[in-house]
């Protein structure tokens, strides 16, 4: 997701971002203020672990909506924390910015690769197989399937 969308009718809104990311949430925060709904902002500083955020998220009650805006590389850590606590897809929006790195799952050795250029084929960093990148995405692995480029 590249843009935060205001979801009306929630009892509370929690925003989590760094200095840069907060700009991406600005419009939604304004709308929440206009509606007079309770909200909380959690600022993440660089390389911070998720312990403190986890404590905050655990305290939330059902009906809370969570917005997270962070560099793509940081987003996954927070997503994992929130999911473990019980936030579902319907209750969250993750907005990434900056360089997007895709994870590629090797169809032969099941190794995980990362690439910024999704057009080109890659060589699996573990088994050396040349992989074409499909648009088949696995939520479980958070990765796209890489399949045999040349038979």
């Amino acid at each position, binding site marked *: 997701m590249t843009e935060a969308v205001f979801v009306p*009718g*929630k*009892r*509370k809104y929690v925003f989590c971002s760094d200095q840069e990311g907060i700009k991406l949430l600005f419009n939604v925060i304004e709308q929440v203020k206009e509606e007079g709904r309770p909200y909380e902002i959690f600022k993440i500083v660089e390389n911070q672990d998720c312990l403190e955020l986890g404590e905050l*998220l*655990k*305290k*939330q*009650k*059902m*009906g*809370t*909506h969570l917005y997270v805006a962070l560099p793509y590389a940081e987003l996954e850590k927070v997503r994992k924390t929130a999911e473990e*606590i*019980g*936030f*579902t897809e*319907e*209750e969250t929006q993750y907005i990434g910015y900056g360089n997007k790195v895709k994870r590629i799952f090797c169809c032969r050795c099941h190794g995980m690769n990362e690439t910024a250029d999704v057009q080109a084929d890659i060589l699996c960093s573990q088994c050396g197989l040349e992989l074409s990148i499909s648009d088949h995405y696995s939520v479980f692995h958070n990765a796209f399937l890489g399949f045999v480029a040349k038979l």
Partner: protein
Amino acid sequence: MYKEKTIPVYVKAIEQENEFIRRFTLASVNEELLPKFSGGAHISTYIEHGELLVRQYSLTSNPDDTKHYQIAVRLSDTSRGGSRYWHEKMKVGDQLQISYPKNHFPLSFKAKHHVFYAAGIGITPFLSMMNELHSRGSSFELYYASKTEEACAFYDFLQEHYPNQYRFYFSNKRERINSSSLEEHPIGTHVYFCGPESFISDLTESAYQLGYPPSAVHTERFTPPQPKDMQPFNVQLKDGTLVEVARDQTLLEALLNKGIKAPYSCRVGRCGTCELQVVEGEIAHYDSFFSEDQKQSQSRILTCVSRSKSAMLVLDV
């Protein structure tokens, strides 16, 4: 003669739970093990008594115990024969057919915490669900409303097995389940409602107002929502046959009475088995199976609960 595969069973034991509720233990006629089931599952029971009485009951026993099934039947004030037969005619040793267990009310695998809201006999599906969660070591709690302590089914059982996980509300003591408890559930909670229609719809509405996502709200209706004023209507089949559906009859019953082999299973508008194509006429949908879009397309009907707004419905059968 039955539309689905059935299992022959006999009544092994009958216990009076309270003034209105009896528990029946069923075992396979051949003393074979019964199929395993999951928490929240139910069976259809088939009783031959002049007409064929088909009724659905939640399985209240331990899902891992496949030697027996147990159901709890409340004598309905408006019994159309089912619960009355169970209460007045059924004896230990009697045989009947049951369906394989089906589950329209399963536990969420994603939930971090489960909260059950029961009113009256609505407790029944939660018994197997709590059993399953208890053996998994998962966290849950029960809010259970009943008229009185005496009418409260499984009162002793719950106190003995889940001493710290229930709260009773007795209306004779002016205690009521209040939707404010929905405000207190931590993130990751799934709620399950079972009881009379108004109980379910009030709680569901309160949950949505707080911002609960639809996937975290689960409901089980024993009876489908029905129009206050049921109107008779006619249906026409492809070969021109005309079937009259009386005021107090479902479309499915009318079709079966005519000897038409219409498919069906749950009979409460949940499973979708009885779906038929509609060529002409305006459908009044009362099921909880079709999506809003599907309902609006006016092209198919669940015959077990839905009716016609127009005087005539033309079916593609």
